[in-house]
């Protein structure tokens, strides 16, 4: 009589275990990947950020030295951070606005709408690739396509160097705006979910197209705008390929993205690696991105309309 419940309990426990083991087995690929490529490198990089480490010799603990040097004696850090913020805070809103405009245009039902959507989405699939970066570089060369078109309209601009200090960052901003596809798709599906009755009601009330847009479409879209804004801002802070391949931070670091600066410290063209310093830079970036995201979420209640 007394042994029975224990036996039953043990049996049910092993049954539970079987289920959870199956769960673990199925999620093992993710868990291994997460441990090997995320968690362990993150913990290691936190440790390295307190070390002087050149990847060839063992790390040497130096306390807060790297952080102190970054904040007191590194002009390039300030420059790279400024450039990245400029890129993120100008490029992201432009991209989101552009995506919204294209989504509104593509929201009309025509026969070819599927084709249009696919075509406009394409840049975001291939946008981060090496091929597009090289294509972009060629387009904006002084003898490239953009200048060939431009010089017909504005002959005085013939041979304009897009990669000189002022315009170079805009070459990268235009590239990110061009990759509006994923935001656009999200906008498109959100547009579909706005109830028709709202438009009908406002139409009956005598609202014109612009009034409908500002009073119905836009408020109903604010949660989507918010989502896109958060996601694209984080992406902008972490952008790497475009900068590394198109400008490599030149000229005079005027297009130096933070991630590229970090990479150049870890894998310099000459001299030994400063992996510890680069790790410290990475952790500072993590904090910055977290703060920016937190501020965006704080601002949510001020402008996002939750139906």
């Amino acid at each position: 009589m007394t042994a029975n419940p224990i036996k039953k309990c043990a049996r049910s426990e092993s049954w539970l275990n079987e289920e959870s083991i199956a769960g673990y087995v199925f999620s093992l690929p993710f868990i291994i990947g997460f441990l090997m490529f995320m968690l362990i490198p993150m913990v290691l990089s936190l440790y390295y950020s307190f070390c002087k480490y050149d990847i060839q010799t063992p790390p040497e603990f130096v306390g807060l030295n790297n952080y102190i040097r970054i904040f007191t004696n590194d002009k390039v850090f300030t420059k790279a951070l400024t450039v990245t913020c400029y890129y993120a805070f100008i490029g992201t809103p432009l991209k989101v606005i552009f995506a919204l405009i294209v989504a509104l245009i593509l929201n009309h039902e025509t026969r070819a709408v599927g084709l249009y959507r696919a075509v406009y989405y394409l840049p975001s699939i291939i946008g981060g690739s090496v091929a597009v970066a090289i294509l972009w570089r060629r387009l904006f060369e002084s003898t490239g396509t953009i200048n060939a078109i431009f010089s017909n309209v504005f002959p005085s601009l013939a041979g304009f160097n897009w990669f000189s200090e002022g315009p170079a960052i805009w070459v990268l901003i235009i590239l990110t705006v061009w990759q509006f596809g994923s935001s656009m798709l999200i906008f498109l599906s959100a547009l579909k979910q706005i109830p028709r009755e709202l438009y009908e009601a406002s139409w009956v009330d005598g609202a014109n197209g612009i009034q409908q847009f500002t009073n119905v479409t836009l408020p109903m879209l604010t949660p989507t705008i918010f989502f896109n804004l958060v996601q694209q801002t984080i992406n902008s802070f972490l952008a790497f390929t475009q900068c590394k391949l198109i400008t490599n931070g030149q000229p005079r670091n005027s297009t130096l993205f933070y991630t590229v600066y970090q990479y150049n410290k870890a894998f310099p063209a000459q001299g030994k690696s400063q992996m510890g310093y680069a790790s410290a830079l990475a952790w500072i970036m993590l904090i910055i991105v977290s703060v920016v995201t937190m501020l965006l979420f704080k601002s949510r209640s001020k402008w996002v309309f939750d139906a």
Partner: protein
Amino acid sequence: MKKLFALAIALIVVLSLSVLPAMADGLVVGTYDPASAGEYELGFGWWGNQVRDEVTKAAADFFTENYPNVKFNLNTQVWNNYWSLMSTYAANNDLPDIMQQDYAFIEQWVAAGDLLDLTPYIESGALDLSKVPQNIIDTGKVGEGIYAVCAGVNAPALLYNKTLTDELGIEVPQNITWDQFAEISRKIFAEKGIGAVYGEGNSENQPTYYARGLGYQAMWGDEGLNPTAEEMTGYYQRIMDGVAEGWMFDTDKMAGVNLTDLAQNPLVYGTSSDVRSWAAFAFSNQIAAYQKAATADGIELGITNWASDDPVKSNYMKPSQFFSITTDTKNPDLAVAFLNYLINDPQANTILRAERGVPANSEVAAAIAEEVTKVDPTYGLVVDYLAFVEKNSSPIFPPLPGYSGTVNQDVLLPLTEEAHLAKPTMTAEQCAKQLIEDTANIAADY
């Protein structure tokens, strides 16, 4: 008909039998027989250009033809990518068996324990350096060991557009001084709008050459640069004057111009008519690759020394590149045999076309001269130029200290960009002062 066919086949077989073994016997590989190595893939890494990549691959293929059990994993990069990639391999103990090395960096790589001491192989005769002059062998010496073998000899060389200077009736002298160079540049810029590129990028070559002109055999010391800030001011003044006069291109014009890839150098490649250069500060062995790129535009290149106030003090003969065997190799004997082939085999060196510089093995250099001149008309120019430099130069500086790479990247590069600005925000004095101070800081922290 059938008979004739059989006869032809027999003839081919006889011919190939008589030719092929002779070639196999002919490979100069030292005492180790590569055929005994079993299936092995030799890793071989170098920085290069199109010509070098082609000839090196051909030399490796020729080795495989003779020893089919030895395959190659070839890895070629441009200069800047090469070093960061190799450091990453080194960290992972995954370096290629044989890597190209540079005189300036050799001590750092030995200090990190990545290169194999070749002394035992030289003593056993597996690596035959008996035909290489002792002073050239010594350039691969670090401490008591020999860690690298010179692939060829070269010297800094100003390669210029001879078609253009001939057209304008300009004579480019040997032992050209900076004032002569600036004068010619002004004239060419005034008449053709073609300028010159000088002191760009993350390289210590131009400041070093300048400092040697002042009488410092070595620019780098253990604790910083040997010249003073006052002395280095003239270097930045040269750049600022050139930019102000228009014949040296400012940072904005140079933006987007890729100088590390030789084929895109403004001497031979016109991304834009705004940025064409009449001369490139290069090395003598590079003339073959530059000439190849220039021929498409109908440009013939000439060669002289880098401009300096005192060319004889500034100029030097350099072991152009080294081959080293890394400690990551799994079969050092085979790697040494292949190295011996690269250094001593006349057929290999005919294939390699002296693109890495005139071969250090003097017998080989003489043996290949005729064949190489046939495929590379610039070879004669290089040999003559090197003979001239030998009489008009000073001993080379010692290999660079370890901290120099960081200085190139973090100090020289931003300062040269500053000096090249159309409207610089610093004076030449300030640039030189910052160069000296920041270098001392990095050296102290290294």
